[in-house]
């Protein structure tokens, strides 16, 4: 080994705690980069492969009843590669051992043909035999949740008929990677399952012989999706076709999209923070090292080492630090990636998972990490190279402290000399003090960003479950019924009150904007399921006109008073014009509302009810559930308490994991910044502090000089961190926003408080490690060595 490299190694050994602190910060950057990009790629690639192998459709549409013969025409639409018509129908399930009813979706399989689109991945068993009544394949998770196996049976009510399902196989489908039951915010596989049966069976049960009510298409490459959608809409319109939509509006796909978007957002925000902080830390210790080794640098040059050799020497040290970080980051990133992937496989149903552990992600992360480090060390390495040898070997001139302003002098006169020393040092290097403060505040900001979600989610739960949807259950009818059906529900045992609703699929247009949405008709004075205005105060519906959710209004570019044109999709696309009378707050979907009577007046079919919100007697659940399970017209049921419970469980698990990760990240930053800055302060001021000891100051008094400076930095860092954290959180909320859901932006004071507490504790501990060195300060030695 070259002698200069031996020096390097020994320098590293001496500096290792500082170097390691920086390596760790850098490792966080590398790990989060690998985590976000690697997981993004894995998820994206898995989905792509799954879609491709299983022929996931690109366009979806529903109708009320379209003749099979129409499929031929649909297949002839220019650009269509494959088309599959089928029957899809909600079903209420009565599963032994479950008091409450569950919900299912029956999906038909061709009788003799195999599926050409949205192909199943059969995990076990076989497909149902055509003609065998009740035979069905069920979704994997649902089957697992109930401990079903091939041969198990369960009961259901499909359009008023009792059905006995017999499981012949367990499957997965690219359509249901993420499967939400009615009214649920997170998947609950116990209460929601997909059931595939032969066409003939389903047609018999739904009275749709020779017809279909759902169609999926795949397109030839290069086909314009809107053109096909328009053609499909035209063909289906006479048969109650509700506008066709692409993958972006397909529920399961949209959830995956939103997850991918979050990973992307994470890759753009978190790794750069760590890269920036490590660059700064490297800059800090390298400039100190070059200052300390001034004379050695001069000597090396006197001996004939070139500028290049000298700067290379320091660059190598930066490389050692950054490579250590990269290696740790690789390990941590891989480990975290595994964890996140496991979490994903809990959430999403993939038959396989493709790990994109591709070399280039690692190379990219390593490259960015090393580049950040080099950037931080470059200035020092260059300044070492350009130090003229003759000057380098003369001792450096004492640091010039500037005379303070009149105010500064007055301020100084009010403080003890030790405090003045601390202040002067602080303002002498404003850039370094500023960056140290900024680094610490980034730790605070990171924590605020992690912790604000507690507040936001609680706020969302409160708004959704306790202020908006206050019903105990939502029962939806298998087909729209006459208003008298509501009274039948009211008479069920244990039902305290009911509130009807009507859902109509419409195509809303305003200017050049157009959206397919469900419009919900509700009674003017809602008691159970309410609407809240922008200030979250309950509103009552105006007797006519539309109430739009914020996000829908945004998509349509509509404001209060604008007139929206609506095509009623289930009524032959008959068009009406309605003014927007109010805009409300909503965290899910793209809601549109109207007084139910007004909606009835718009409809050419007349008054209909899609379902009811019900208030239940908590002591009579058993009776109520039994009655609902027996209710002929119920297609599905959403249970608020169950849904909330599942939501809480899921969110809590996720938030706990996330918060733990963020706390570790923040502690690493705080430690890296504070420890290094304290070490450097101590190194710069060792002589000064030893002199103080010689003059008779106690160890505590001397430590105070260091503590005061660190304390000021730490204190200023808190509010700055809060502001940054507020900004980051806002960015996260923006990143989460999708048509499916939004998170309210609520940062509770406790988020700021806890973030500061964690960072302050971490900082105080890091500083303490250094300050304990003041006690070991060898006065004689410090004074003897030349600075």
């Amino acid at each position, binding site marked *: 080994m*070259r*002698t*200069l490299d*031996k*020096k390097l190694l*020994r*320098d590293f050994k*001496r500096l290792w705690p500082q170097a390691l602190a920086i390596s760790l910060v850098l490792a966080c950057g590398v790990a989060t980069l690998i985590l976000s990009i690697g997981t993004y790629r894995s998820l994206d690639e898995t989905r792509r492969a799954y879609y491709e192998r299983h022929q996931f459709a690109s366009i979806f549409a529903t109708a009320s009843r379209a003749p099979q013969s129409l499929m031929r025409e649909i297949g002839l639409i220019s650009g269509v590669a494959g088309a599959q018509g089928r029957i899809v129908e909600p079903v209420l399930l009565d599963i032994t051992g479950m008091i409450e009813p569950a919900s299912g979706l029956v999906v038909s399989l061709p009788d003799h043909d195999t599926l050409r689109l949205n192909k199943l991945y059969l995990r076990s068993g076989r497909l149902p035999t055509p003609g065998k009544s009740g035979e069905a394949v069920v979704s994997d998770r649902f089957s697992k949740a109930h401990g079903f196996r091939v041969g198990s049976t369960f009961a259901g009510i499909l359009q008023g008929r009792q059905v006995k399902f017999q499981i012949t196989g367990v499957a997965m489908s690219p359509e249901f990677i993420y499967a939400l039951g009615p009214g649920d915010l997170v998947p609950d596989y116990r209460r929601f399952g997909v059931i595939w049966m032969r066409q003939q069976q389903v047609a018999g049960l739904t009275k749709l012989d020779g017809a279909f009510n759902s169609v999926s298409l795949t397109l030839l490459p290069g086909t314009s999706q809107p053109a096909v959608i328009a053609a499909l809409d035209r063909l289906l319109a006479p048969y109650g076709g509700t506008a066709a939509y692409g993958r972006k509006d397909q529920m399961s796909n949209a959830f995956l999209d939103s997850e991918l978007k979050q990973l992307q957002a994470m890759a753009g925000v978190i790794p750069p923070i760590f890269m920036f902080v490590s660059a700064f830390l490297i800059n800090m210790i390298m400039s100190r090292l070059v200052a300390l080794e001034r*004379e*050695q640098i*001069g*000597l*090396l*040059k*006197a*001996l*004939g*080492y*070139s*500028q290049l*050799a000298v700067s290379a020497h320091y660059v190598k040290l930066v490389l050692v630090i950054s490579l250590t970080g990269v290696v740790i980051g690789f390990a941590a990133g891989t480990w975290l990636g595994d964890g996140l992937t496991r979490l994903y496989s809990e959430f999403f149903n993939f038959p396989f998972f493709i790990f994109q552990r591709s070399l280039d992600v690692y190379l990219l992360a390593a490259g960015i990490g090393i580049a950040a480090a080099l950037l931080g060390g470059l200035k020092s390495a260059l300044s070492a190279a350009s130090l*003229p*040898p*003759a000057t380098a*070997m003369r001792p450096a001139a004492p640091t010039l402290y500037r005379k303070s302003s009149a105010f500064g002098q007055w301020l100084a006169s009010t403080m003890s000399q030790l405090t003045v020393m601390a202040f002067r040092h602080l303002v002498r290097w404003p850039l370094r003090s500023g960056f140290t403060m900024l680094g610490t505040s980034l730790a605070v900001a990171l924590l605020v960003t992690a912790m604000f979600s507690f507040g936001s989610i609680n706020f969302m739960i409160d708004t959704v479950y306790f202020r908006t949807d206050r019903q105990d259950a939502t029962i939806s009818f298998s087909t729209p019924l006459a208003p008298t059906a509501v009274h039948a529900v009211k008479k069920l045992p244990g039902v305290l009150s009911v509130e009807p609703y009507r859902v109509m699929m419409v195509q809303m247009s305003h200017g050049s904007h157009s959206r397919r949405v469900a419009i919900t008709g509700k009674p003017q004075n809602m008691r159970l399921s309410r609407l809240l205005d922008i200030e979250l105060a309950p509103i009552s519906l105006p007797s006519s006109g539309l109430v739009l959710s914020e996000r829908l209004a945004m998509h349509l570019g509509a404001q209060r008073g604008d007139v929206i044109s609506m095509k009623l999709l289930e009524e032959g696309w008959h068009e009406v014009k309605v003014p927007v009378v109010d805009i409300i707050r909503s965290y899910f979907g793209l809601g549109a509302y109207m007084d139910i009577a007004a909606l009835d007046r718009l409809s050419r079919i007349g008054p209909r009810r899609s379902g009811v919100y019900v208030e239940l007697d908590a002591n009579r659940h058993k009776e109520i559930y039994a009655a609902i399970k027996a209710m002929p017209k119920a297609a599905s049921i959403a249970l608020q308490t169950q849904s909330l419970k599942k939501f809480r469980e899921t969110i809590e698990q996720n938030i706990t994991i996330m918060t733990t990760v963020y706390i570790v990240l923040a502690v690493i930053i705080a430690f890296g910044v504070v420890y290094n800055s304290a070490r450097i302060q101590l190194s710069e001021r060792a002589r000064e502090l030893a002199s103080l000891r010689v003059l008779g100051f106690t160890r505590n008094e001397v430590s105070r000089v260091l503590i005061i400076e660190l304390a000021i930095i730490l204190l200023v860092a808190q509010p700055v961190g809060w502001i940054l954290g507020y900004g980051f959180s806002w960015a996260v909320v923006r990143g989460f926003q999708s048509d499916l859901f939004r998170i309210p932006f609520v940062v509770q004071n406790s988020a700021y408080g806890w973030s500061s507490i964690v960072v302050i504790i971490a900082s105080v501990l890091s500083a303490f490690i250094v300050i304990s060195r003041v006690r070991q300060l060898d006065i004689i030695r410090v004074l003897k060595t*030349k600075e």
Partner: protein
Amino acid sequence: MSIRQNKKVAVFTVEDLTKTYHTGEVDVYALRGVSTKLYQGELSVVLGPSGSGKSTFMNIIGGLDTATSGRVMFKDLDLSGASETELTNFRRRHVGFVFQFYNLIPSLTARENVALVTEISTNPMRPEDALALVGLEKRMNHFPAQMSGGEQQRVAIARAIAKNPEVLLCDEPTGSLDSKTGRLVLEALTRINDELGTTTAIISHNAVIHKLAHRTLYFADGEIVREQVSDKRLTPSQLEW
């Protein structure tokens, strides 16, 4: 030694050298027109009060610094207009330095400090041999902090001579040593001058040392005020410190 003097090959030819430092408001005239020659194989001693320009002079002829005006020739090589790279190469090939504060790399052992130089030289001695020349073969694996000042300075000398330089430039090599250790260091230097014939210049503000020299340059106020050639030299042990 008379043979050497007869040959009189000039290693350094310095003509009208000036050096001005611009520090803040005042200009410091460190050298105000110095002309002299240093001859091959000679041991020169540079004397003069503190601040008289001795170090500046030596730094310039050693290629550590550049002059404001004037000319420095190392044999046929003009150092006055040399680039940083040329100066680096000049130092690397031809010059060994010894400084008052030893300037050893604290994180390297005695042997490694010497190896630091031999690694980048074309025709070096073995570090062990260089250390043996200064009587430190037994302390090879000690770190600077484990050695006395005199020992450290002898490591510095070993380091300076290990590459078999043509010239050895020593800036107050005994400046921070007591007389007994100073003598040991001077013995090492004279021995190298005698045995290897290395052209040597030693800065000192201790006038006695001139008794070791072939030639003595007296600096005052940035000028050479006197130059003295002696043919009666003493050995370090004969010096009255």
